[in-house]
């Protein structure tokens, strides 16, 4: 089936995808290169054990001397998920609200293209663009991991990659909803990044204060990356909920766009 909006969305972002892919690949390679030093020095684990609980919750409550624990702490618990979330938010905001602001939606929607199909293809664009850096990182781990005796299984790598990708998509979906509702790129970015900050804050508060534990339940950090898929395996429940949430958000965004006036 032809998907011209998806095709264009990817074609226009090829360089951006390449840039993010190279960036995340290089960063992953740097992290991998450091692993042998950390693994062979037990003081890092002793130091980590003295970290306060909230910090451990964010960097991954695991031993740094194990490959999966190290990768969770250094890459998969914060840096890569936040990078992917930012890419998802900016892509979703630009592809829907940004294109509305510059009048491109008005041009394509003057034809018979249905608005729900447009939103669906834009969501797929976000999914593909977001997958780039996750896959680049995974490829570097798959190739470079054995060289540094990382001991991260393919299943664990797949689990953490899928969790990270879905983590980003949840925030992209928020930006998509905000863009579909308001039609302004700034609103979409603010909503996506705002939710990212809220989720990060909720994770810290939930890990620190007993009264704030309920907040942690609202945070994708806690469910998708805080559970350390690289160490403990795929959080299937959270993955299913994330998939359903993203699909529902795309459907909701399509309905919002169908019911509102275009901006540009």
């Amino acid at each position, binding site marked *: 089936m*032809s998907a011209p909006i998806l*095709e264009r969305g990817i074609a226009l972002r090829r360089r951006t995808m390449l840039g993010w892919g190279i960036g995340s690949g290089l960063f992953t390679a740097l992290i991998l290169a450091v692993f042998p030093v950390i693994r062979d020095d037990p003081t890092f684990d002793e130091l980590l054990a003295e970290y306060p609980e909230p910090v451990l919750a964010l960097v991954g409550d695991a031993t740094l001397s194990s490959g999966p624990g190290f990768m969770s702490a250094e890459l998969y618990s914060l840096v890569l998920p936040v990078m992917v979330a930012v890419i998802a938010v900016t892509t979703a905001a630009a592809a829907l609200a940004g294109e509305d602001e*510059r*009048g491109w939606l008005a*041009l*394509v*929607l003057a*034809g*018979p293209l*249905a608005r729900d199909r447009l939103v669906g293809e834009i969501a797929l664009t976000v999914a593909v663009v977001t997958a780039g850096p996750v896959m680049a990182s995974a490829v570097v781990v798959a190739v470079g991991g054995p060289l540094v005796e990382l001991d991260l299984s393919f299943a664990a790598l797949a689990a953490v990659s899928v969790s990270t990708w879905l983590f980003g998509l949840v925030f992209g979906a928020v930006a998509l909803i905000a863009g579909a509702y308001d039609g302004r790129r700034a609103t979409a970015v603010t909503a996506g990044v705002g939710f990212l900050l809220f989720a990060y804050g909720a994770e810290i508060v939930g890990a620190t204060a007993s009264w704030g534990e309920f907040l942690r339940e609202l945070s994708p950090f806690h469910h998708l990356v805080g559970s350390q898929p690289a160490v403990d395996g795929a959080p299937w429940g959270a993955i299913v909920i994330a998939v359903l949430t993203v699909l529902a958000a795309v459907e909701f965004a399509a309905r919002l766009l169908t019911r509102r006036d275009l901006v540009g």
Partner: protein
Amino acid sequence: MATFELEHLTKRFGEHVAVDDVSASAEPGEVVGLIGANGSGKTTTMRMLLGHIRPSSGRAWIEGNELSRPAARVGVGFLPDDPPLDDRWSVARQLDWWERLRGPAPRRESIEHRLGLDRHKTIGELSRGNRQKVGIAMALMHVPSLIVLDEPATGLDPLVRQELWALLRFEADRGATVLFSSHVLNDVEHACDRVIVLRDGGVAFDGAVDALLADATRTIEVDFAAPVDPGVFTTLAGVDEVHWDDRRLTITFSGPADPVVKALARHEVIEVTASRPTLEGSFAHLNRSTT
């Protein structure tokens, strides 16, 4: 069947009424100009016709289909003011992609040729006029039955402008309906069969260009052999203004010229200079008379 029908369309933005009870339609083969001052409701009316914004009340159809159905817009070609093209793509790639979105475009090659498009140039390198030409090609290449253009002649040089009007006339002759807005009244006068004038969101005039021109404000300058009483002319039907200056009388009037000509004939006239009625004059007259 009318190509499009607008029935009592009204659009409010909060307290502001942008379009107020507009009803209009157009038949296949018509070239219709939509004119009005800034804020008169031209763009909002076009946007409602294209389904970009929903009317607060009223309904609209394209070829019998209610606008809420995407299928209603299968036969629509649209040129926005300053078309949002993809700057990194070549002209050919932009048109290829547009063909994938809208389906096969049987007239693509002939339109590219008529507009003199350079297929290999990058969109970002194009002048405003050449970008406009790419937008025109996108609006026309699918043989649309309704062509909606917002300020289509913007940035075009006079030769390409002539080519555009010829293209639009060709489209109308094959049975398409053309609706375009312009602030250059000369273009509207040149290209349209019919004109819809919007004022304060409502239809102030809807009819043939000739009918609007008949009401146009015109000016006649007359040199007399001897002084005349200008008061004789001020009371004539249709006369708006009379100015006397050293045996030269300047009369501004609208409507039939007959009363003025007959009054002039009672005096010894040396020379008469009359301006042709223009849409600018009609538009100004219409705006004054409805204020």
